Protein backbone atom coordinates (compact mmCIF):
# COMPACT_ATOMS: atom_id res chain seq x y z
CA UNK A 1 0.00 0.00 0.00
CA UNK A 2 1.35 3.38 -0.84
CA UNK A 3 0.03 6.85 -1.57
CA UNK A 4 -0.42 7.85 -5.20
CA UNK A 5 2.34 9.78 -6.89
CA UNK A 6 1.66 12.91 -8.90
CA UNK A 7 0.92 11.30 -12.22
CA UNK A 8 -1.38 8.72 -10.70
CA UNK A 9 -3.12 11.33 -8.57
CA UNK A 10 -3.76 13.46 -11.61
CA UNK A 11 -5.25 10.54 -13.49
CA UNK A 12 -7.58 9.61 -10.62
CA UNK A 13 -8.72 13.16 -10.00
CA UNK A 14 -9.35 13.78 -13.65
CA UNK A 15 -11.62 10.76 -13.90
CA UNK A 16 -13.48 11.76 -10.76
CA UNK A 17 -13.72 15.33 -11.94
CA UNK A 18 -15.65 14.23 -15.00
CA UNK A 19 -18.45 13.05 -12.74
CA UNK A 20 -18.27 15.42 -9.82
CA UNK A 21 -16.88 18.67 -11.15
CA UNK A 22 -16.17 21.13 -8.38
CA UNK A 23 -17.64 18.77 -5.80
CA UNK A 24 -14.36 16.91 -6.03
CA UNK A 25 -13.20 19.18 -3.25
CA UNK A 26 -15.88 17.72 -1.02
CA UNK A 27 -14.63 14.24 -1.68
CA UNK A 28 -11.00 15.02 -1.03
CA UNK A 29 -11.52 17.18 2.03
CA UNK A 30 -14.20 15.10 3.63
CA UNK A 31 -13.75 15.00 7.40
CA UNK A 32 -13.90 11.44 8.65
CA UNK A 33 -15.18 10.63 12.09
CA UNK A 34 -13.88 7.14 12.29
CA UNK A 35 -11.28 6.16 14.81
CA UNK A 36 -10.67 7.04 18.43
CA UNK A 37 -9.18 10.44 17.67
CA UNK A 38 -11.67 13.19 18.54
CA UNK A 39 -10.30 15.42 15.78
CA UNK A 40 -11.72 14.30 12.47
CA UNK A 41 -9.02 13.12 10.16
CA UNK A 42 -9.24 13.26 6.41
CA UNK A 43 -9.89 10.76 3.69
CA UNK A 44 -7.03 9.83 1.43
CA UNK A 45 -6.29 7.64 -1.55
CA UNK A 46 -4.03 4.65 -1.32
CA UNK A 47 -2.78 2.28 -3.97
CA UNK A 48 -2.54 -1.44 -3.34
CA UNK A 49 -1.74 -3.78 -6.23
CA UNK A 50 -3.07 -1.45 -8.93
CA UNK A 51 -6.32 -0.74 -7.09
CA UNK A 52 -7.01 2.68 -5.67
CA UNK A 53 -8.84 2.86 -2.34
CA UNK A 54 -10.56 5.77 -0.63
CA UNK A 55 -9.75 5.39 3.06
CA UNK A 56 -9.80 7.50 6.15
CA UNK A 57 -6.50 8.35 7.80
CA UNK A 58 -7.20 6.39 10.95
CA UNK A 59 -7.95 3.26 8.96
CA UNK A 60 -4.75 3.65 6.98
CA UNK A 61 -2.75 3.82 10.16
CA UNK A 62 -4.14 0.51 11.30
CA UNK A 63 -3.80 -1.09 7.92
CA UNK A 64 -0.07 -0.56 7.95
CA UNK A 65 0.10 -3.37 10.46
CA UNK A 66 -0.92 -5.88 7.82
CA UNK A 67 1.73 -7.23 5.49
CA UNK A 68 1.46 -6.20 1.87
CA UNK A 69 0.93 -9.69 0.64
CA UNK A 70 -1.94 -10.26 3.04
CA UNK A 71 -3.72 -6.94 2.57
CA UNK A 72 -6.66 -7.45 0.23
CA UNK A 73 -8.72 -4.32 0.50
CA UNK A 74 -9.22 -1.31 2.71
CA UNK A 75 -11.84 1.38 2.80
CA UNK A 76 -13.71 1.79 -0.48
CA UNK A 77 -12.15 0.77 -3.75
CA UNK A 78 -12.78 3.42 -6.36
CA UNK A 79 -10.97 2.01 -9.36
CA UNK A 80 -7.95 0.33 -10.74
CA UNK A 81 -4.95 1.07 -12.91
CA UNK A 82 -4.67 -1.05 -16.00
CA UNK A 83 -1.49 -2.70 -17.19
CA UNK A 84 -1.02 0.12 -19.63
CA UNK A 85 -1.18 2.71 -16.88
CA UNK A 86 -4.61 4.22 -17.46
CA UNK A 87 -7.11 4.53 -14.63
CA UNK A 88 -10.66 3.11 -14.77
CA UNK A 89 -13.38 3.78 -12.23
CA UNK A 90 -15.19 0.69 -11.02
CA UNK A 91 -18.70 0.28 -9.66
CA UNK A 92 -17.51 0.41 -6.06
CA UNK A 93 -17.11 4.17 -6.21
CA UNK A 94 -20.77 4.61 -7.06
CA UNK A 95 -21.96 5.72 -3.63
CA UNK A 96 -19.15 8.25 -3.40
CA UNK A 97 -19.66 9.62 -6.89
CA UNK A 98 -23.45 9.58 -6.81
CA UNK A 99 -23.64 11.82 -3.78
CA UNK A 100 -21.40 14.38 -5.47
CA UNK A 101 -22.48 14.07 -9.07
CA UNK A 102 -23.33 17.08 -11.18
CA UNK A 103 -24.74 15.35 -14.25
CA UNK A 104 -27.55 12.93 -13.56
CA UNK A 105 -29.88 10.83 -15.61
CA UNK A 106 -33.05 9.12 -14.41
CA UNK A 107 -34.23 5.93 -16.05
CA UNK A 108 -37.75 4.74 -16.58
CA UNK A 109 -38.61 1.54 -14.70
CA UNK A 110 -38.88 -0.40 -17.94
CA UNK A 111 -35.29 0.15 -18.98
CA UNK A 112 -33.74 -0.25 -15.55
CA UNK A 113 -33.16 -3.94 -16.04
CA UNK A 114 -31.61 -3.41 -19.42
CA UNK A 115 -29.06 -1.04 -17.93
CA UNK A 116 -28.37 -3.39 -15.05
CA UNK A 117 -27.47 -6.07 -17.53
CA UNK A 118 -24.76 -3.87 -18.96
CA UNK A 119 -26.49 -2.33 -21.94
CA UNK A 120 -26.22 1.32 -22.90
CA UNK A 121 -29.07 3.70 -22.18
CA UNK A 122 -31.24 4.45 -25.18
CA UNK A 123 -33.36 7.51 -25.64
CA UNK A 124 -36.53 5.59 -25.01
CA UNK A 125 -35.43 4.69 -21.53
CA UNK A 126 -34.67 8.19 -20.34
CA UNK A 127 -36.94 9.66 -17.73
CA UNK A 128 -35.24 12.86 -16.66
CA UNK A 129 -31.92 14.41 -17.48
CA UNK A 130 -30.05 17.34 -15.97
CA UNK A 131 -29.30 20.19 -18.32
CA UNK A 132 -25.95 21.37 -19.65
CA UNK A 133 -24.54 17.98 -20.44
CA UNK A 134 -21.74 17.99 -22.97
CA UNK A 135 -20.95 14.82 -24.92
CA UNK A 136 -18.12 13.10 -23.10
CA UNK A 137 -19.23 14.14 -19.63
CA UNK A 138 -19.49 11.66 -16.83
CA UNK A 139 -23.08 10.92 -15.96
CA UNK A 140 -24.56 9.04 -12.99
CA UNK A 141 -27.59 6.91 -13.72
CA UNK A 142 -30.46 6.82 -11.21
CA UNK A 143 -33.74 5.05 -11.12
CA UNK A 144 -36.91 7.08 -10.78
CA UNK A 145 -36.81 6.49 -7.05
CA UNK A 146 -33.39 8.11 -6.83
CA UNK A 147 -31.48 4.91 -6.31
CA UNK A 148 -28.09 5.14 -8.01
CA UNK A 149 -27.81 2.37 -10.56
CA UNK A 150 -24.46 3.06 -12.14
CA UNK A 151 -22.56 5.54 -14.21
CA UNK A 152 -21.43 6.14 -17.75
CA UNK A 153 -20.38 8.66 -20.34
CA UNK A 154 -22.83 10.95 -22.06
CA UNK A 155 -23.04 10.34 -25.77
CA UNK A 156 -25.11 13.37 -26.64
CA UNK A 157 -25.78 16.75 -25.17
CA UNK A 158 -29.00 17.53 -23.40
CA UNK A 159 -30.33 19.35 -26.45
CA UNK A 160 -28.85 16.92 -28.92
CA UNK A 161 -30.69 13.95 -27.58
CA UNK A 162 -34.05 15.31 -28.53
CA UNK A 163 -33.00 15.04 -32.16
CA UNK A 164 -32.09 11.38 -31.81
CA UNK A 165 -34.21 8.50 -33.01
CA UNK A 166 -35.81 6.57 -30.14
CA UNK A 167 -33.22 3.84 -30.20
CA UNK A 168 -30.22 6.10 -30.20
CA UNK A 169 -27.71 5.73 -27.38
CA UNK A 170 -27.71 8.54 -24.88
CA UNK A 171 -25.43 7.21 -22.14
CA UNK A 172 -22.61 4.76 -22.72
CA UNK A 173 -22.54 2.24 -19.93
CA UNK A 174 -19.41 2.07 -17.79
CA UNK A 175 -20.44 0.43 -14.52
CA UNK A 176 -23.66 -0.64 -12.84
CA UNK A 177 -24.68 -2.32 -9.60
CA UNK A 178 -25.73 -5.43 -11.51
CA UNK A 179 -22.03 -6.17 -11.84
CA UNK A 180 -21.97 -7.28 -8.24
CA UNK A 181 -23.95 -10.30 -9.35
CA UNK A 182 -22.78 -10.75 -12.92
CA UNK A 183 -19.06 -10.24 -12.45
CA UNK A 184 -18.66 -11.37 -8.88
CA UNK A 185 -15.35 -13.01 -9.64
CA UNK A 186 -13.79 -10.11 -11.41
CA UNK A 187 -14.58 -7.41 -8.90
Amino acid at each position, binding site marked *: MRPLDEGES*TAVFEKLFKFTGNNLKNIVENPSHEGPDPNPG*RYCFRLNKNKVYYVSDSLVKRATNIARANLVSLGTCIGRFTHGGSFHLTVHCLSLVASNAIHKVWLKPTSEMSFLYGNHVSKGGLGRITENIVPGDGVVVFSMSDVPLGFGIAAK*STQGYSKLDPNGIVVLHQADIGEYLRMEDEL
Partner: protein
Amino acid sequence: METETQFQVDLGNLMAVDLHHQFHSIPSSREELVKECIAKGTELVQAIANNLFNLPSTEDIEGPLVKLPPPTTRLPREKHIPKPKPPTKWELFAKAKGIKNRKKDKIAYDESSETWKRRYGYDRANDEDNVPIIEAKMTDVPGEDPFAKRQQDKKKRVEKQDKNRLQNLKQAAKVGALPSHVQLAATRLPITGTQAAPQKVTKDELGDVAGIAATATASGGKFDKKLPGEKPGKHKGKYRTVCFLPVIGGKGIHTQEQEQTDKILNKLISKNSHEMLNVNKAVNMYNVKKDKKRNNRPEKSSATSSQLKPRKNLQKKPYNKGSSKPFDKGSKKPFNKGSKRPFNKGSSNKGRGK
Protein backbone atom coordinates in the same frame (compact mmCIF):
# COMPACT_ATOMS: atom_id res chain seq x y z
CA MET B 1 47.06 -48.26 -64.41
CA GLU B 2 46.57 -49.17 -68.06
CA THR B 3 44.69 -52.19 -69.23
CA GLU B 4 44.58 -53.90 -72.63
CA THR B 5 41.59 -51.90 -73.64
CA GLN B 6 43.53 -48.72 -72.84
CA PHE B 7 41.27 -47.35 -70.16
CA GLN B 8 42.86 -45.09 -67.65
CA VAL B 9 41.70 -46.24 -64.24
CA ASP B 10 42.28 -44.14 -61.10
CA LEU B 11 41.42 -46.47 -58.25
CA GLY B 12 41.92 -43.84 -55.55
CA ASN B 13 39.00 -41.85 -57.03
CA LEU B 14 37.26 -44.98 -58.39
CA MET B 15 37.39 -43.39 -61.81
CA ALA B 16 37.93 -44.83 -65.33
CA VAL B 17 38.60 -42.71 -68.38
CA ASP B 18 38.68 -43.74 -72.03
CA LEU B 19 41.07 -41.27 -73.62
CA HIS B 20 40.67 -42.50 -77.17
CA HIS B 21 36.96 -42.62 -77.38
CA GLN B 22 35.33 -41.14 -80.44
CA PHE B 23 31.78 -41.03 -81.53
CA HIS B 24 31.99 -42.95 -84.84
CA SER B 25 28.77 -41.55 -86.11
CA ILE B 26 26.50 -38.87 -84.87
CA PRO B 27 23.60 -40.80 -83.42
CA SER B 28 20.30 -39.95 -84.98
CA SER B 29 18.13 -39.82 -81.87
CA ARG B 30 18.48 -39.22 -78.19
CA GLU B 31 17.66 -42.82 -77.27
CA GLU B 32 20.44 -44.15 -79.47
CA LEU B 33 22.88 -41.74 -77.91
CA VAL B 34 21.80 -42.86 -74.47
CA LYS B 35 22.20 -46.49 -75.40
CA GLU B 36 25.67 -45.96 -76.74
CA CYS B 37 26.72 -44.05 -73.61
CA ILE B 38 25.37 -46.75 -71.33
CA ALA B 39 27.23 -49.42 -73.29
CA LYS B 40 30.47 -47.49 -73.08
CA GLY B 41 29.93 -46.78 -69.40
CA THR B 42 29.39 -50.46 -68.71
CA GLU B 43 32.77 -51.27 -70.19
CA LEU B 44 34.44 -48.66 -68.03
CA VAL B 45 32.76 -49.80 -64.83
CA GLN B 46 33.78 -53.35 -65.70
CA ALA B 47 37.38 -52.17 -65.93
CA ILE B 48 37.15 -50.55 -62.48
CA ALA B 49 35.68 -53.73 -61.01
CA ASN B 50 38.41 -55.86 -62.57
CA ASN B 51 41.14 -53.70 -61.08
CA LEU B 52 39.41 -53.58 -57.72
CA PHE B 53 39.31 -57.34 -57.48
CA ASN B 54 42.94 -57.56 -58.45
CA LEU B 55 43.94 -55.63 -55.33
CA PRO B 56 45.00 -57.61 -52.23
CA SER B 57 42.02 -57.94 -49.93
CA THR B 58 41.66 -58.64 -46.24
CA GLU B 59 38.82 -60.60 -44.70
CA ASP B 60 36.18 -58.72 -42.76
CA ILE B 61 32.85 -59.71 -41.22
CA GLU B 62 30.89 -58.31 -44.16
CA GLY B 63 33.21 -59.46 -46.88
CA PRO B 64 36.60 -58.78 -48.45
CA LEU B 65 37.99 -55.38 -47.50
CA VAL B 66 40.28 -53.57 -49.94
CA LYS B 67 42.44 -50.53 -49.20
CA LEU B 68 42.37 -48.19 -52.18
CA PRO B 69 45.63 -46.72 -53.40
CA PRO B 70 46.07 -42.93 -53.25
CA PRO B 71 44.45 -41.14 -56.22
CA THR B 72 46.55 -40.24 -59.23
CA THR B 73 44.44 -37.52 -60.88
CA ARG B 74 44.70 -34.06 -59.40
CA LEU B 75 41.36 -32.34 -58.82
CA PRO B 76 41.15 -28.65 -59.69
CA ARG B 77 41.11 -25.98 -56.95
CA GLU B 78 37.83 -25.01 -55.44
CA LYS B 79 38.83 -21.51 -54.43
CA HIS B 80 41.04 -19.01 -56.21
CA ILE B 81 44.76 -18.71 -55.65
CA PRO B 82 45.37 -16.24 -52.85
CA LYS B 83 46.25 -12.83 -54.15
CA PRO B 84 49.62 -11.52 -53.11
CA LYS B 85 49.08 -9.21 -50.21
CA PRO B 86 50.47 -5.72 -50.45
CA PRO B 87 53.55 -5.11 -48.33
CA THR B 88 52.91 -3.52 -44.95
CA LYS B 89 54.28 -0.12 -44.06
CA TRP B 90 57.15 -1.66 -42.11
CA GLU B 91 58.01 -3.96 -44.93
CA LEU B 92 58.20 -1.05 -47.32
CA PHE B 93 60.35 0.90 -44.91
CA ALA B 94 62.66 -2.06 -44.27
CA LYS B 95 63.09 -2.63 -47.96
CA ALA B 96 63.88 1.00 -48.56
CA LYS B 97 66.41 1.13 -45.74
CA GLY B 98 67.86 -2.28 -46.49
CA ILE B 99 67.00 -3.70 -43.03
CA LYS B 100 67.18 -7.49 -42.93
CA ASN B 101 65.19 -9.60 -40.50
CA ARG B 102 67.58 -11.24 -38.06
CA LYS B 103 66.67 -14.48 -36.37
CA LYS B 104 66.59 -14.25 -32.55
CA ASP B 105 67.09 -16.95 -29.96
CA LYS B 106 64.40 -17.86 -27.50
CA ILE B 107 66.74 -17.53 -24.53
CA ALA B 108 68.53 -14.32 -23.65
CA TYR B 109 70.97 -13.39 -20.91
CA ASP B 110 69.50 -11.35 -18.08
CA GLU B 111 72.00 -8.86 -16.63
CA SER B 112 70.24 -8.19 -13.35
CA SER B 113 69.83 -11.80 -12.25
CA GLU B 114 72.81 -13.04 -14.31
CA THR B 115 70.91 -16.02 -15.62
CA TRP B 116 69.52 -17.10 -18.93
CA LYS B 117 65.84 -16.34 -19.22
CA ARG B 118 63.34 -16.50 -22.04
CA ARG B 119 63.20 -13.49 -24.31
CA TYR B 120 59.46 -12.84 -23.88
CA GLY B 121 56.63 -13.92 -21.62
CA TYR B 122 56.54 -14.62 -17.88
CA ASP B 123 59.77 -13.86 -16.05
CA ARG B 124 61.52 -12.55 -19.12
CA ALA B 125 65.08 -11.32 -19.52
CA ASN B 126 65.83 -7.58 -19.37
CA ASP B 127 62.24 -6.85 -18.41
CA GLU B 128 61.67 -3.11 -18.54
CA ASP B 129 58.53 -3.12 -16.37
CA ASN B 130 60.07 -4.54 -13.21
CA VAL B 131 62.99 -2.19 -12.55
CA PRO B 132 63.15 -1.23 -8.85
CA ILE B 133 64.78 2.17 -9.31
CA ILE B 134 64.52 4.61 -12.18
CA GLU B 135 67.29 7.21 -12.21
CA ALA B 136 66.17 10.74 -12.63
CA LYS B 137 67.29 12.61 -15.70
CA MET B 138 67.75 16.31 -16.15
CA THR B 139 64.76 16.45 -18.45
CA ASP B 140 62.37 15.03 -15.82
CA VAL B 141 59.55 17.18 -14.44
CA PRO B 142 59.63 17.05 -10.60
CA GLY B 143 55.99 16.14 -9.90
CA GLU B 144 55.77 13.28 -12.40
CA ASP B 145 55.71 9.60 -11.48
CA PRO B 146 58.24 7.89 -13.76
CA PHE B 147 56.74 4.43 -13.29
CA ALA B 148 53.31 5.64 -14.29
CA LYS B 149 54.87 7.50 -17.17
CA ARG B 150 56.52 4.33 -18.41
CA GLN B 151 53.24 2.48 -18.27
CA GLN B 152 51.48 5.21 -20.21
CA ASP B 153 54.22 5.29 -22.81
CA LYS B 154 53.92 1.57 -23.28
CA LYS B 155 50.16 1.83 -23.64
CA LYS B 156 50.58 4.49 -26.27
CA ARG B 157 53.06 2.38 -28.17
CA VAL B 158 50.73 -0.58 -28.11
CA GLU B 159 47.83 1.53 -29.34
CA LYS B 160 49.93 2.90 -32.14
CA GLN B 161 50.97 -0.56 -33.13
CA ASP B 162 47.40 -1.73 -33.18
CA LYS B 163 46.41 1.20 -35.33
CA ASN B 164 49.14 0.40 -37.81
CA ARG B 165 48.09 -3.22 -37.93
CA LEU B 166 44.53 -2.23 -38.75
CA GLN B 167 45.72 0.14 -41.43
CA ASN B 168 47.72 -2.64 -43.03
CA LEU B 169 44.70 -4.91 -43.00
CA LYS B 170 42.61 -2.19 -44.58
CA GLN B 171 45.14 -1.82 -47.35
CA ALA B 172 45.10 -5.54 -47.94
CA ALA B 173 41.30 -5.59 -47.93
CA LYS B 174 41.24 -2.89 -50.58
CA VAL B 175 43.18 -5.16 -52.94
CA GLY B 176 41.17 -8.15 -51.81
CA ALA B 177 44.10 -9.96 -50.19
CA LEU B 178 42.90 -10.29 -46.60
CA PRO B 179 44.29 -13.28 -44.71
CA SER B 180 41.62 -15.95 -44.62
CA HIS B 181 40.88 -15.94 -40.90
CA VAL B 182 40.27 -12.21 -40.96
CA GLN B 183 38.16 -12.58 -44.08
CA LEU B 184 36.01 -15.19 -42.35
CA ALA B 185 35.54 -13.00 -39.30
CA ALA B 186 34.51 -10.04 -41.41
CA THR B 187 31.88 -11.87 -43.46
CA ARG B 188 30.36 -14.63 -41.37
CA LEU B 189 29.53 -17.55 -43.63
CA PRO B 190 26.20 -19.25 -43.00
CA ILE B 191 26.31 -22.84 -41.84
CA THR B 192 25.11 -24.97 -44.72
CA GLY B 193 21.60 -26.20 -44.13
CA THR B 194 20.47 -23.36 -41.91
CA GLN B 195 18.88 -20.09 -42.94
CA ALA B 196 20.69 -17.31 -44.75
CA ALA B 197 23.33 -15.24 -43.04
CA PRO B 198 21.93 -12.67 -40.61
CA GLN B 199 21.48 -9.23 -42.10
CA LYS B 200 23.38 -6.23 -40.92
CA VAL B 201 21.94 -4.71 -37.74
CA THR B 202 19.77 -1.72 -38.61
CA LYS B 203 19.98 1.67 -36.98
CA ASP B 204 16.75 1.15 -35.09
CA GLU B 205 17.82 -2.21 -33.77
CA LEU B 206 21.06 -0.74 -32.57
CA GLY B 207 19.12 1.98 -30.81
CA ASP B 208 16.90 -0.56 -29.11
CA VAL B 209 19.83 -2.63 -27.99
CA ALA B 210 21.56 0.44 -26.66
CA GLY B 211 18.42 1.29 -24.71
CA ILE B 212 18.25 -2.19 -23.23
CA ALA B 213 21.88 -2.02 -22.28
CA ALA B 214 21.28 1.36 -20.67
CA THR B 215 18.81 -0.11 -18.20
CA ALA B 216 21.71 -2.01 -16.68
CA THR B 217 23.02 1.19 -15.13
CA ALA B 218 21.59 2.51 -11.90
CA SER B 219 20.48 5.74 -13.51
CA GLY B 220 18.92 4.01 -16.49
CA GLY B 221 21.46 5.27 -18.99
CA LYS B 222 20.75 8.92 -18.38
CA PHE B 223 24.39 9.91 -17.97
CA ASP B 224 25.97 7.58 -20.50
CA LYS B 225 28.31 9.18 -22.99
CA LYS B 226 26.60 9.30 -26.34
CA LEU B 227 28.35 8.97 -29.67
CA PRO B 228 28.03 11.89 -32.07
CA GLY B 229 24.76 11.50 -33.87
CA GLU B 230 23.27 9.11 -31.35
CA LYS B 231 19.77 10.08 -30.38
CA PRO B 232 18.76 10.09 -26.72
CA GLY B 233 16.86 7.01 -25.63
CA LYS B 234 13.11 6.77 -25.68
CA HIS B 235 12.74 5.78 -22.04
CA LYS B 236 14.89 8.20 -20.15
CA GLY B 237 16.07 7.09 -16.77
CA LYS B 238 14.40 4.48 -14.66
CA TYR B 239 10.69 4.00 -15.10
CA ARG B 240 9.77 4.40 -11.46
CA THR B 241 10.03 7.32 -9.16
CA VAL B 242 12.17 6.13 -6.32
CA CYS B 243 10.73 8.36 -3.66
CA PHE B 244 7.08 7.92 -2.69
CA LEU B 245 5.21 9.91 -0.12
CA PRO B 246 5.03 8.37 3.35
CA VAL B 247 2.10 6.01 3.80
CA ILE B 248 0.79 7.67 6.91
CA GLY B 249 0.86 11.40 6.81
CA GLY B 250 2.62 13.22 9.59
CA LYS B 251 0.88 15.35 12.16
CA GLY B 252 -0.10 18.90 11.49
CA ILE B 253 -2.41 20.51 9.03
CA HIS B 254 -0.40 20.47 5.88
CA THR B 255 1.37 17.19 5.27
CA GLN B 256 3.21 16.49 2.05
CA GLU B 257 0.38 14.40 0.72
CA GLN B 258 -2.20 17.06 1.38
CA GLU B 259 -0.03 19.60 -0.36
CA GLN B 260 0.25 17.37 -3.39
CA THR B 261 -3.46 16.70 -3.60
CA ASP B 262 -4.25 20.37 -3.15
CA LYS B 263 -1.85 21.29 -5.90
CA ILE B 264 -3.36 18.80 -8.31
CA LEU B 265 -6.89 19.80 -7.41
CA ASN B 266 -6.20 23.46 -7.99
CA LYS B 267 -4.59 22.71 -11.30
CA LEU B 268 -7.59 20.69 -12.39
CA ILE B 269 -10.11 23.25 -11.30
CA SER B 270 -8.28 26.13 -12.90
CA LYS B 271 -7.92 24.15 -16.11
CA ASN B 272 -11.65 23.61 -16.25
CA SER B 273 -12.68 26.96 -14.87
CA HIS B 274 -14.03 28.00 -18.23
CA GLU B 275 -16.59 25.27 -17.85
CA MET B 276 -17.64 26.53 -14.44
CA LEU B 277 -19.12 29.59 -16.00
CA ASN B 278 -21.71 28.51 -18.48
CA VAL B 279 -20.96 31.08 -21.10
CA ASN B 280 -23.92 30.43 -23.33
CA LYS B 281 -26.32 30.52 -20.44
CA ALA B 282 -24.90 33.80 -19.21
CA VAL B 283 -25.05 35.25 -22.72
CA ASN B 284 -28.66 34.24 -23.10
CA MET B 285 -29.56 35.66 -19.75
CA TYR B 286 -27.88 38.89 -20.72
CA ASN B 287 -29.76 38.99 -24.01
CA VAL B 288 -33.07 38.25 -22.34
CA LYS B 289 -32.41 41.05 -19.93
CA LYS B 290 -31.67 43.37 -22.82
CA ASP B 291 -34.92 42.37 -24.48
CA LYS B 292 -36.81 43.09 -21.31
CA LYS B 293 -35.20 46.51 -21.14
CA ARG B 294 -36.08 47.22 -24.74
CA ASN B 295 -39.61 46.06 -24.19
CA ASN B 296 -39.99 48.35 -21.20
CA ARG B 297 -38.38 51.35 -22.82
CA PRO B 298 -40.75 51.74 -25.79
CA GLU B 299 -43.59 52.16 -23.24
CA LYS B 300 -41.88 55.16 -21.73
CA SER B 301 -40.57 56.86 -24.89
CA SER B 302 -42.74 58.47 -27.56
CA ALA B 303 -44.63 56.38 -30.04
CA THR B 304 -43.07 57.92 -33.15
CA SER B 305 -39.51 57.37 -32.08
CA SER B 306 -40.19 53.76 -31.34
CA GLN B 307 -41.77 53.25 -34.75
CA LEU B 308 -38.80 54.86 -36.42
CA LYS B 309 -36.35 52.74 -34.56
CA PRO B 310 -35.70 49.49 -36.38
CA ARG B 311 -37.09 46.65 -34.32
CA LYS B 312 -34.37 44.13 -33.80
CA ASN B 313 -33.80 41.24 -31.42
CA LEU B 314 -37.37 41.10 -30.34
CA GLN B 315 -37.68 37.32 -30.67
CA LYS B 316 -36.57 35.25 -27.76
CA LYS B 317 -33.20 33.73 -28.51
CA PRO B 318 -33.29 29.94 -29.02
CA TYR B 319 -31.41 28.26 -26.20
CA ASN B 320 -29.11 25.84 -27.92
CA LYS B 321 -25.68 24.75 -26.90
CA GLY B 322 -22.81 25.36 -29.25
CA SER B 323 -25.11 27.73 -30.99
CA SER B 324 -24.53 29.59 -34.19
CA LYS B 325 -23.77 32.77 -32.28
CA PRO B 326 -20.14 33.64 -32.97
CA PHE B 327 -19.37 34.49 -29.40
CA ASP B 328 -15.68 34.35 -28.73
CA LYS B 329 -14.33 34.52 -25.24
CA GLY B 330 -11.89 37.29 -25.92
CA SER B 331 -14.56 39.84 -26.39
CA LYS B 332 -16.84 38.89 -23.55
CA LYS B 333 -18.10 41.48 -21.17
CA PRO B 334 -16.49 41.42 -17.76
CA PHE B 335 -18.61 38.87 -15.90
CA ASN B 336 -17.60 37.85 -12.44
CA LYS B 337 -16.29 34.35 -12.32
CA GLY B 338 -18.98 32.02 -11.19
CA SER B 339 -21.45 34.62 -10.14
CA LYS B 340 -24.63 35.18 -12.01
CA ARG B 341 -25.90 38.60 -12.92
CA PRO B 342 -28.84 39.49 -10.70
CA PHE B 343 -31.78 39.08 -12.98
CA ASN B 344 -34.33 41.33 -11.40
CA LYS B 345 -37.53 41.62 -13.27
CA GLY B 346 -38.79 45.11 -13.57
CA SER B 347 -35.94 46.65 -11.71
CA SER B 348 -33.76 46.88 -14.75
CA ASN B 349 -34.52 50.47 -15.45
CA LYS B 350 -34.43 51.61 -11.90
CA GLY B 351 -31.00 53.07 -11.96
CA ARG B 352 -31.06 53.93 -15.55
CA GLY B 353 -33.61 56.60 -15.75
CA LYS B 354 -33.81 58.12 -19.15
